[in-house]
């Protein structure tokens, strides 16, 4: 079963400051945590892909009717907190295992190593049809 674990730019439950305000060693520890988690998932044969996305400042929204020139909206956006910050795509044996990984990711270290308790959105990826149909 394949799950997408999504994290956005929204507030974290620990209420800590945005990462740009952290001490450099705290940022380093956070990045190392994320890399170590990815390595662990790869070693277990569960990692499909993990990517961080460029900041909301660089996001663009494109709307088109297919005929006239598309409408392109550049940031900043009032709802930038809802934008996707990054994702992990994992291939696991059960929904419970996806939740377990999400819990690990949520407890990523913040300032002074305190877990930031970031909300992780867990979404199952639609698979191919079963042969019964």
């Amino acid at each position, binding site marked *: 079963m394949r799950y997408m674990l999504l994290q956005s730019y929204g507030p974290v439950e620990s209420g800590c400051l945005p990462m740009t305000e952290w001490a450099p060693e705290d940022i380093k520890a956070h990045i190392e945590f994320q890399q170590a988690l990815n390595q662990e998932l*790869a*070693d*277990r*044969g*569960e*990692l*499909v*892909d993990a990517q961080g996305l460029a900041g909301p400042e660089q996001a663009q929204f494109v709307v088109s009717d297919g005929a006239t020139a598309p409408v392109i909206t550049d940031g900043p956006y009032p709802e930038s907190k809802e934008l996707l910050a990054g994702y992990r795509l994992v*291939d*696991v*044996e059960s929904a419970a295992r996806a939740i377990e990984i999400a819990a690990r990711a949520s407890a990523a270290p913040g300032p002074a190593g305190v877990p930031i308790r970031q909300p992780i959105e867990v979404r*199952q990826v*639609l*698979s*191919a*049809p*079963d*042969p*019964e*149909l």
Partner: protein
Amino acid sequence: MTTPEDLLRQCAPQVLGVITRRYGDFAGAEDAVQEALLAAALSWPAEGTPDNPVGWLIRVAARRMTDQYRADDARRRRELLAASWSLADPGPVPGQDDTLILMYLCCHPALAPGSAIPLTLRAVGGLTTREIAAAFLLPEKTMGQRISRAKATLKAAGEPFRLPAPGQRAGRLRSVLHVLYLLFSEGYTTSSGPDLARADLSGEAIRLARMLRASLPGDPEVTGLLALMLLTEARRPARTGPGGELIPLAEQQRGRWDRAMITEGLTLVTAALRHGPGPAGEYQLQAAIAALHDQAARPADTNWAGILALYRRLERMTGNPMVTVNRAAAAAMAGGPAAGLAILDSVAGQLGDHHRYLSVRAHLLEQAGDRAGARAGFQAAAARAGNVREQQYLITKAAQVAADSGPG
């Protein structure tokens, strides 16, 4: 026609059996054989296929093992010394037994299906990690790690390289059949876009089921599973439209079904049902149901009473509420939608939220003329569907029911 790839894959389990026996190290032997297969894939097309392909692969794999042991520590070197005492030619090769031992090993109950399937494909099927990773849309490294971990789990379980004790074989065979069935299901999918490669997985499942049957020709459930695969796979060409959309059984162009596969499947299921000791097992019953579908030239010719009876037996045997849902669909075809809906009510408590339950119920409501109920049912099923083709099908059905009922 046998391609070089086919030949390599056929040799794989035999070579692995010999190397594992010689060195007593399944995990290491499996890596060495994989490397030998890769070496062969590179050199055979250029230098020609050797006269004795199995011997060639054994020699190369054994050299890899020796290199590996040399690179390891002194303890391992002493093991190599002990192993080298038996380095004489292996003599007559117990090929089919080894294939069977490998299947029992790779489908060990200690392994989750997600690990057992790729390990079986590599060790028994002779596929490369790259091919397996591509079929499952996973990075090659991730798939390699999964296979390594599976082998570490087997090592920890202390499973010896021999047939399980006679008292355990029935249970262990069930695990093997289950893994092959899941592999087949994984591959039995659409025929478009990135899903295309996955068709190969069904083909691999059928090939492995044939190999298993060659080792256990008298086992009716093994034969039943192979028959089920063939009778299901036969419908693949008609099962999807040009855009990859699902076409349900009743609307498929039956002329596009693969006749040769159906004939072979029918012969196999008939033999299994006739010669098997005791009551027919789960896969034989499922194969028999598939056979009744495949024998109907038109949907209206389907022997629904026969299918209904088979689902009843399957339901009693497995106690699986999903079988009850299928029985409800068959009952509706045999005796009208009300009969089916009544059966569905009996499992509403267990499955009321499942997309397949909702979808079958919506179909029956549509047959019964309850368009509003059918539409809501198809929408609810679409919201819970676990796969994209089925979701698209259900959304389309909801829209069709709405359109058929006209404005207002």
